């Protein structure tokens, strides 16, 4: 209690006494202590959970977070949160928080001083590098890494150690979004921003249950519809969800056929001449790549596309295979519905936003489907102006800010690709390492990283802020792989998880507002928060863990940051990588002051619409658009065909399995399940069946159901016509529940271009468990 609070309390006590004497018999409420709702200090932070990046105000009292409200000053959520955001601070206070380091001794994890654990991590790194080479060690982080976490990880592994074995779980979450942006525009991340919502007339959701997964943006969209009658929300999905209930039109398609539907829409746009011809002439070039590109099911699978330039006539001819009547047979979507969608995109009076997230990203043709949706926006010129926006949403708070912008992927550097000599030189200069330290070839992407651990090519992995023993597809192979002899697994986390269970060293992490940091959200917005409460026990931020280990490995000179100012020092060092009008970032001081700033941030101005010379300082003036990412200064329309998924329902495994999320839980539930209100609302995973299928198997709500794929089997309670309803012949299971691991069943096939696995499609059989 400070002096001022003390004075207030003393004054209060005196006044009560006085008042009681004045009016005998009337009791007066005791003065509110500083713990009362009024005695709180409110501090700004982006939400800990999804990629929307809502601004929160955290109520702090006596070194504890005690309340939350939406930040009215945040341009993202304007004062509204979802149920996870409102309860986010409870995630700090699970009774089983990791407060000390743990080291495996004689097969058991036992508490140890954190310095001993950090010594062991550093010595194991050095030992493996000496014995097996620098590519025998790896770090695997996540889209929940703060920007300084990811930056230090990249600098230590790519700059100091000299291996490209750096990945983030965002590979499982939005790698296809990145390769989609790169192949079409030559630069990553959306051209538009959330303000597109208030400017659009039509919203088309491509396989995206926004009502549960991006609820705050969904509410913003419904508010737009309320204020502007005639606004349409179209839900184009494989399953009926809460989003379908709010949509004006719900269109169901069979898994994987979104590729054909997008091509059919393009076919119709051309047939009706609903094209923006001046835009096409000035800003678009046409391309095609390899076909029959495989699925990555075999170890050491490699793929390189061979793009070739084609002309409009060749593109038009290739689309002849995608007449709506033909696509109807493949997709189950009536031709008139396809024409309806084409009519919405093609109407020059309507501004159209397309939203998508995991449906298009977790897809064995994930890069292709992104290209195909961009094609539609490019054919109609509906891009990079207010309300015309193909918009890729993200699921993690800093998938964009850290994994994509800092480049914590095997092929990336904070600026550019590892294969690009200029990018390597820039990194070497800013990091202060010889350019020869930075390896010019990508090594292991996430699935291949875990395969290499299983094979034994990789001996050491440090996992931070993620839970791969719940999230890897075909989980058993990778869990068995990590448990093998001579694999050293370090896990930094805040709670015990199935991943810490198999670790050799567990480092307790400071979480979110227990340290200072920055996240970058889906709309290129960077958000800073300060440290608000102390971490428990010996818990230490992931950034500082990396710095401590770097120093112990002899790289102290590269990590000479001071404890009080290290986040500022790291930020100012990092933002040099993005200097220039195309990606200029705000200074540390500006980030501290404002509830988030969008890049490019030039002369104190945020860029809301990239490639639009009216808004984007990097775009050449004199035209409506300038796509400066590609060498030909154009956006690329790609012809990409429909190709079937690697595994489809058959006689033995007759059902499609789709996996996903629920509004209450975030990712693997390691945080949200420790929030009582969220756990009680959604205590366990379930299997959703169509009522007709349930009837056929005599399965009632709550009955135990056995799901089996070629890779594994689990039991789940049935949920029929509650949260959602899959079509007949399909089932849906959420992945948050560590005791009902649906990833035992999923397939580790991935998009050959992005290397992102497809969690949305594999074949299973359904049995009523007795």
């Amino acid at each position: 209690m400070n002096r001022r609070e003390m004075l207030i309390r003393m004054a209060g006590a005196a006044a009560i006494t006085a008042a009681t004497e004045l009016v005998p018999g009337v009791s007066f409420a005791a003065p509110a202590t500083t713990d009362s709702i009024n005695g709180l200090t409110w501090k700004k932070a982006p939400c800990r959970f999804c990629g929307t990046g809502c601004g929160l105000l955290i109520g702090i009292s006596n070194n504890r977070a005690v309340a939350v409200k939406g930040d009215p000053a945040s341009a993202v959520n304007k004062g509204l949160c979802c149920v996870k955001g409102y309860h986010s601070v409870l995630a700090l206070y699970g009774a089983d928080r990791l407060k000390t380091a743990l080291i495996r001794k004689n097969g058991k994890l036992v508490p140890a001083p954190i310095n001993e654990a950090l010594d062991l991590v550093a010595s194991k790194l050095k030992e493996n590098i000496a014995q097996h080479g620098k590519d025998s060690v790896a770090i695997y982080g996540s889209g929940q890494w703060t920007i300084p976490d990811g930056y230090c990880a990249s600098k230590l592994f790519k700059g100091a150690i000299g291996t490209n074995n750096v990945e983030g779980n965002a590979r499982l979450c939005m790698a296809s979004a990145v390769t989609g942006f790169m192949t079409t525009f030559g630069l990553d991340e959306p051209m538009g921003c959330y303000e597109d919502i208030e400017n659009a007339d039509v919203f088309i959701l491509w396989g995206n249950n926004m009502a549960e997964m991006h609820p705050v943006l969904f509410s913003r969209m419904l508010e737009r519809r309320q204020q502007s009658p005639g606004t349409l929300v179209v839900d184009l999905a494989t399953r009926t969800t809460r989003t379908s209930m709010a949509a004006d039109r719900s269109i169901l398609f069979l898994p994987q056929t979104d590729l054909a539907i997008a091509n059919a829409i393009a076919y119709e746009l051309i047939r009706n001449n609903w094209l923006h011809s001046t835009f096409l002439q000035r800003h678009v070039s046409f391309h095609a790549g390899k076909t029959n590109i495989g699925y990555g099911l075999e170890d050491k699978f490699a793929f390189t596309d061979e793009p070739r330039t084609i002309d409009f006539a060749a593109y038009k001819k290739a689309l002849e295979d995608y007449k709506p009547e033909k696509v109807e047979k493949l997709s189950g979507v009536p031709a008139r519905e396809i024409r309806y969608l084409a009519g919405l995109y093609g109407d020059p009076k309507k501004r159209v936003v397309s939203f998508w997230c995991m449906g298009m990203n977790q897809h064995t043709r994930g890069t292709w489907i992104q290209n195909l949706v961009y094609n539609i926006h490019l054919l109609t010129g509906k891009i990079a102006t207010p309300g015309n926006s193909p918009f890729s949403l993200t699921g993690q708070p800093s998938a964009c800010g850290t994994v994509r912008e800092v480049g914590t992927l095997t092929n990336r550097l904070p600026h550019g690709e590892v294969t690009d000599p200029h990018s390597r030189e820039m990194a070497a200069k800013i990091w202060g390492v010889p350019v020869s330290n930075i390896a010019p070839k990508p090594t292991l992407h996430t699935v291949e990283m875990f395969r290499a651990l299983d094979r034994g090519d990789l001996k050491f992995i440090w996992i931070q802020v993620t839970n791969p023993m719940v999230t890897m597809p075909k989980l058993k192979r990778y869990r068995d792989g990590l448990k093998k002899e001579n694999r050293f697994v370090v896990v930094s986390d805040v709670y015990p998880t199935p991943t810490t269970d198999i670790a050799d060293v567990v480092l307790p992490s400071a979480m979110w507002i227990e340290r200072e940091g920055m996240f970058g959200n889906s709309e290129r917005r960077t958000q800073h928060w300060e440290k608000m409460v102390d971490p428990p026990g010996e818990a230490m931020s992931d950034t500082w863990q990396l710095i401590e280990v770097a120093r112990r490995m002899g790289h102290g000179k590269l990590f000479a940051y001071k404890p009080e100012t290290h986040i500022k020092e790291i930020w100012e060092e990092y933002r040099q990588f993005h200097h220039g009008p195309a990606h200029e970032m705000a200074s540390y001081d500006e980030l501290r002051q404002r509830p988030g700033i969008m890049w490019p941030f030039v002369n104190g101005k945020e860029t809301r619409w990239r490639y639009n010379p009216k808004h984007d300082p990097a775009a050449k003036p004199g035209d409506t658009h300038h796509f400066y990412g590609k060498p030909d200064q154009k956006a690329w329309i790609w012809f990409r065909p429909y190709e079937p998924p690697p595994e489809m329902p058959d006689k033995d495994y007759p059902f499609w399995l789709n996996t996903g999320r629920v509004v209450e839980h975030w990712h693997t539930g390691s945080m949200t399940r420790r929030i009582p209100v969220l756990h009680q609302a959604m205590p366990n995973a379930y299997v959703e069946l169509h009522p007709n299928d349930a009837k056929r198997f005599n399965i009632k709500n709550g009955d135990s159901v056995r799901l089996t794929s070629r890779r594994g089997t689990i039991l789940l309670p049935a949920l029929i016509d509650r949260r959602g309803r899959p079509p007949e012949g399909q089932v849906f299971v959420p992945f948050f529940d560590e005791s009902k691991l649906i990833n035992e069943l999923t397939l580790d096939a991935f998009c050959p271009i992005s290397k992102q696995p497809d969690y949305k499609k594999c074949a299973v059989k359904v049995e009523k468990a007795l």
Partner: protein
Amino acid sequence: MKRYWSIAIAAALMVAAVIVIGHAIGAGERDARTPAAASIERPLPILTEAGVFERSSKGASLKDVKPGPGQPERHLPAYYARRSYPGGPPAIPHDLVDDQSMGGKSCLACHLDGGWAPKFNAFTPVTPHPELINCRSCHVHPENKSSFQPTTFQPAQTAAVPKGAIPGAPPAIPHELDMRSNCIACHGGPAAPVEIRTTHPERSNCRQCHVTGARPFAAFTREGGQ
């Protein structure tokens, strides 16, 4: 009489001028290919102020509505028990009418205007923000009372129900107003917890008397005063 005519004409001209100028301003910002976005020109509401007058006209009709014999009243402990901390979104204490629908068609059927719900033997609480219809993005329904792991979270203390500074004086508002700026929703009518039910719901401008940020007995001090 002539005077009234000139006033009327002047008024009509002013209205016309406002409309014409307004259109001209709006047209200047428009992209020729696309219609204007209504909400872009709409001023953003001030979140903590927007709701004070919402449905305040209903207040008068609540004046004499009190629970009848055998109709149980709500009390503050139950009100707070539904929330993780003061100001947190309450959980849904009853079965869902329709698990799949948006709130606009199900939740608001009862929670927009409230009233006696025989099924639950209770008066229905009224939402302070009926414009938000994806209700279950914030309000969840507990399936059971189980616990995954115990928590050590300690919520902010609930504010004591304030009394006026002197007898008869209007108490100040002891809570934040975000998402709860519509006073009558929680403080008016038979569903309001007894402890916080207003005696005068017909007075619509609540905050002309009840100020925010109650910090009882915090003394005024002059900056730099002697």
